[in-house]
């Protein structure tokens, strides 16, 4: 019999000191509050890791573990690929003062083969790191924020004047899923402001034209085209599953549908509207956790009748204006996704281009609002008459 190698002697010594447990028991301990630490390297973890595990690569374990697990009395379960590296890591944790440290026998391989839950943690690819480098440099976004953007699902109502700049910048920012609702086709008169479209796409559906441009800018995102007119029968099924809705529609009927569905589904409604040289931006989000703001109906309970709305012939717009207002909407959308800053909840920014004036107006929730007051029973959707749907063209 040959002498055991130094490695084998050391392992035997570790096994004598560190309790080894089966993967199933580790899962039980984790559910009961134990910290599960996966000490494998990033490329191994990218293939899958136990859900909720703290992923602290062996190389940085000692440097980072105290921040991740401040309580030395908390049970710590360590895993690696096969159950050897975790023994070394466990011993090191014990020497840092962790009182109950265990190692998974057979490691993640045995965990996975035993059919225990596995998640593939999201990390940025090298390409994504390059593309979003300027975001990653800011701690308010960082890798975590960029992953939130990539996981976000944003629906744009209207792929027109407001929708164009919003769509372009959200695609550039890496919003992972952008939904577009529009039933219209590109008209040459749109191109004075609808910069997501191009001259050679005149006559083609706007959602298809926009999709081409957005994927040209950022091929990694997903663009979902809803080529339809929003109405009371489809609004909820289309909105369901989106995290933010950006209203860039062009008529009151749609704006009230957008509001009512967003209130019901508790989705933030990033609102922008424009008329000639003037625009309004707000975030209607009664479910916002930090402040109770109004919904669109709290502010404007009913749309104007056609005879009191600006006439269709007057509904021109300075081509640049939707750029200004749409980008304010895009900024609010990104803030809402990242949970940073102070969103325009309960505030309306009013921009008047001719005197170059921005005013901030306070909007309050109406405690009697039929749609968003506490305990309201949803009163149902209303299909208002659509008028002035396209500037100068009538419904």
């Amino acid at each position, binding site marked *: 019999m040959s002498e055991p190698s130094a490695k084998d002697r050391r392992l035997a010594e570790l096994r004598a000191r560190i309790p080894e447990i089966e993967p199933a028991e580790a899962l039980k301990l984790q559910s009961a509050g134990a910290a599960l630490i996966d000490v494998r390297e990033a490329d191994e973890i990218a293939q899958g890791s136990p859900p909720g595990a703290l992923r602290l690569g062996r190389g940085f374990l000692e440097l980072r573990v105290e921040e991740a697990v401040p309580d030395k009395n908390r049970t710590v379960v360590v895993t690696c690929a096969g159950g050897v590296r975790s023994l070394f890591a466990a011993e090191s944790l014990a020497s840092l003062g962790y009182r109950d440290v265990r190692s998974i026998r057979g490691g993640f391989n045995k965990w996975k083969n035993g059919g225990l839950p596995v998640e593939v943690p999201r990390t940025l690819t090298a390409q994504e790191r390059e593309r979003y480098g300027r975001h990653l440099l800011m701690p308010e976004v960082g890798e975590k924020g960029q992953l939130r953007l990539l996981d976000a699902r944003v629906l744009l109502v*209207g792929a*027109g*004047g*407001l*929708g164009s700049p919003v769509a372009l910048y959200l695609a550039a920012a890496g919003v992972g899923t952008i939904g577009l609702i529009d039933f219209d086709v590109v008209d040459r008169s*749109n191109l004075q402001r*609808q910069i997501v479209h191009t001259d050679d796409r005149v006559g083609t559906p706007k959602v298809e034209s926009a999709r081409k441009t957005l994927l040209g800018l950022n091929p990694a995102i997903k663009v979902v085209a809803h080529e339809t007119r929003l109405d009371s029968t489809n609004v909820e099924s289309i909105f369901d599953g989106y995290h933010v809705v950006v*209203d*860039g*529609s*062009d*008529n*009151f009927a749609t*704006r009230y549908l957008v509001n009512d569905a967003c209130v019901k589904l508790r989705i933030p409604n990033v609102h*922008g*509207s*424009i*008329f*000639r*040289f*003037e*625009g*309004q931006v707000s975030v209607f989000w009664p479910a916002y956790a930090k402040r109770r703001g109004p919904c669109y109906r709290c*502010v*404007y*309970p*009913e*749309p*104007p009748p056609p005879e*009191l*709305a*600006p006439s269709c012939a*007057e*509904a021109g*717009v300075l081509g640049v204006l*939707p750029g200004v207002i749409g980008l304010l909407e895009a900024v609010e959308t990104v803030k809402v996704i990242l949970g940073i800053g102070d969103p325009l909840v309960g505030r*309306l920014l*009013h921009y*008047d281009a*001719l*005197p170059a004036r921005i*005013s*901030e*107006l*306070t*909007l*309050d929730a*109406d405690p009697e609002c039929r749609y968003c007051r506490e305990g309201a029973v949803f009163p149902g959707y209303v299909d208002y008459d659509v008028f*002035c749907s*396209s*500037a100068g063209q009538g419904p």
Partner: protein
Amino acid sequence: MSKVTVRIPTALRSFVGGADEIGLEAETVGRVISVLADRHRGLIERVCDAEGRVRPFVNLFVDGKNIKTSGGLDTPLADGAVVSIVPAVAGGR
């Protein structure tokens, strides 16, 4: 009397000769409305209904605060106050 500035929205500027602001003297928002009604035919019908109530698609603000929560048409105006008339706008294309 307080000297106040009234901001006129784009959609209603045709009733005031294209002006984006009008200066006038008034102690309350209600008084602003009646002064405008006297001087500019057609404008007030779009802001208030026949009973003088502010229409549901228009908001009035005094120094950025909605009069719905500050006393409605009785909201007092200090010298230099800015009254903004802000109707709902639907455009987006």
